[in-house]
């Protein structure tokens, strides 16, 4: 379970997250929507400790992410993350991209890391691209590669930061399908997304962020049907 309590985040004087309270249960799929600059990405970075926080607390399975005593590299193994930019390692083949972290972070023997990589690449539909370099993959394939790479660490949570925003429209579908597959398999997911269809169909809950505040959270029917907040309704009217 991910617990976020009264989280405040500043970049210098800029107050980016203004007291977020949020629990994400095991097995839940949460989508986060909101305008650009509302702090959605920053929230994800605070959850896996890529950004320090100034006030409040984030705990993952009762481990305080930002405590000095926390082994953050160990904790991050539980939290897979997929970014808007695919960030595939260009100097490694698809297989090596996925096998690298299990090998050097988890210390798995080469052969075992390879098996994990083959399994996860097959999982995301790239079983026939094992020895291909990222430069020879499409954006959608590279993003699925990034998902496989994160899954290879056997995370318990997956954080998606606009995983489809940088893709050509015709490639969005294959990545969303992969995310859907993970959701069906019971993965706990937090998805920052602009794909309202995905948020509506796949999420258990949808959170709307507005200027650093979690303005509203609820089941998709509520957010997309009868949003309580004026800001939510306005935002949704504009994206549709």
């Amino acid at each position, binding site marked *: 379970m991910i617990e976020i309590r009264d989280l405040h985040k500043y970049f210098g004087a800029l107050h980016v997250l203004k007291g977020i309270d949020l629990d994400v249960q095991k097995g839940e799929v949460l989508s986060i929507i909101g305008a650009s600059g509302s702090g959605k990405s920053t929230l994800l*970075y605070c959850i*896996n400790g*890529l950004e320090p926080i100034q006030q409040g607390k984030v705990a993952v399975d009762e481990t305080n992410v930002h405590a000095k005593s926390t082994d953050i*590299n*160990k904790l*991050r*193994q539980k*939290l*897979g*993350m997929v*970014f*808007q*930019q695919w*960030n595939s*390692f*260009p*100097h490694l083949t698809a297989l090596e991209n996925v096998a*690298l*972290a299990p090998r*050097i*972070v*988890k210390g798995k023997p080469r052969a075992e890391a390879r098996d994990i990589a083959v399994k996860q690449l097959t999982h995301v539909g790239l079983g026939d691209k094992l020895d291909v*370099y990222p*430069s020879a993959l499409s954006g959608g394939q590279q993003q699925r590669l*990034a998902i496989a*790479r*994160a899954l290879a*660490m056997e995370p318990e949570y997956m954080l998606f930061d606009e995983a489809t925003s940088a893709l050509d429209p015709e490639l969005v579908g294959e990545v969303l399908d992969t995310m859907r597959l993970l959701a069906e398999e019971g993965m706990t997911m937090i998805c920052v997304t602009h794909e309202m269809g995905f948020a509506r169909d796949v999420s258990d809950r949808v959170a709307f962020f507005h200027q650093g505040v979690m303005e509203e959270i609820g089941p998709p029917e509520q957010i997309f049907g009868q949003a309580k907040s004026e800001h939510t309704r306005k935002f949704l009217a504009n994206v549709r």
Partner: protein
Amino acid sequence: MEPTLTFFSGFGINDFWFLGEAAMRTMWISILSITLGTLFGVLFGWILYEGKLTAALTVAPVLDVFRSVPLIIQLVLFYNFAPIVGLNLDAFASGVAILTIYAAALVANVARGGIEAVDRSMRRASRSLGMTYWQDLRYVVLPIGGRAVFPAWVGVALGVMKDSALVSVLGYVELLKASQILITRTQEPFLILSIAGAFYFALSFPISRYAASLEKRWAQ
């Protein structure tokens, strides 16, 4: 043909070996200083990248000095003043020392550029997989940044190899000094300098070819 016992004797096969041997010394002094200079240069480059303010006040100005003062002045100054502070280095060691620092100063900028060439979001991706700071540097930044600035590094390496000719002013008999000695004796500057030039070419050509083929391989 009458035997030439005069002081100014012609260019013979032994002289060719003499030049070849000197070319080996040029190669040796270059390999040493480029290798050491690269190791220190990468370290300095990392300090420049990470250290920001501290680096700007300490390492950066020192490197600037070594980068901008002509090498020949550095060599002569170092060779003549090192003994004063108790460092008794011969011409070879002095040459290696100065060429190393010089190479390090050049490589430092290249290395910093290499680190900067790796996207912040790429580094976040590797950290998000649980890699430590050092694993990210070793397995992600080094190969990606290294490839990005490899051509610049090759340029530095070839430059240092050619600049090693300046160590001749300290009396170290590398390729250029050897040529000067032979020219004085044979009075055949054109022939000898051509041969010396050919040796320099023979030393650098394989390096640039190999570098080009590496780059081609990486580009795929």
